[in-house]
């Protein structure tokens, strides 16, 4: 069982918000930036990789019960989004890598 905490350590992710829920379990990965599309397709306990950083991202992750959000390519995150992530208990992590590179790395730790 892979947790958000383990993934953070393996991929050297920076935790931007939602640090109280680092024990969430990870079952899969979803990549997408069009929020309405992500909402329709993300699965429970997916890691969601995106470059979107507005507040709606947290709503989508909460509805879709994502295990965490990874913001790719160090996209800048608005203050309101950080606060919302804390409020909703969604771990919000940041990486300098691209969505593809992050996904490839996660695959190593994820036995599907």
């Amino acid at each position, binding site marked *: 069982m892979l947790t958000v905490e383990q993934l953070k350590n393996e991929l050297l992710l920076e935790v931007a918000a939602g640090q109280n829920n680092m024990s969430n379990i990870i079952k899969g990965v979803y990549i997408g930036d069009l*929020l309405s599309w992500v909402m329709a397709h993300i699965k429970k306990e997916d890691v969601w990789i995106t470059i979107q950083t*507005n507040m709606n991202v947290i709503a989508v992750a909460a509805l879709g019960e994502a295990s965490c959000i990874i913001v790719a390519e160090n996209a800048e995150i608005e203050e309101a989004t950080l606060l919302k992530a804390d409020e909703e208990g969604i771990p919000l992590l940041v990486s300098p890598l691209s969505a593809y590179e992050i996904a490839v790395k996660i695959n190593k730790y994820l036995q599907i």
Partner: protein
Amino acid sequence: MKELALHILDIAQNSIRAEATLIEITIKEDITKDIFSIEIKDNGIGMDEETLKRVEDPFFTTRNTRKIGLGVSLLKTAALQCEGSFNILSKKRMGTILTVVFKHSHIDRAPLGSIEDTIVTLLMMEKEVDYIYNHHYNNNSFSFNTKEVKAILQGLPITDIKVIDWIKRHVADEIKDIVNS
């Protein structure tokens, strides 16, 4: 683009290339009607019907440096994704008005973002051009006009770092005021 302010910057740069001397940007947010609209109006050289027809085609651009110009089509796509609409009116030698409407509450509607940075970037690019920025939020509104600022400055360039800093703070504060009051 992640912020509507970046779309606005891109469109206003077209106005500058069209030799506009006045660019007016108007944002209307109406929560009851669930509308977020942007209008960008310039007094530039305008477009003939032939050009106007092609302006939404991403493989059309007036630039010689590359043959793909995505600005207008990206904004149109963004609006249509949000159950909005898009329109351009233009007349040769008169100018151009671009209007784009988004459903305010649509999940894919990008936030306005840093419009003060857009205004300041435009000013730095072409300080001879004047800009009017209007922002309506329900019944509140705020207006900023570089002509008025220039009149007060009496010769000090509007691109002076202190003036630029003031403009940034002023615009950001005024928007906060109309949204929160």
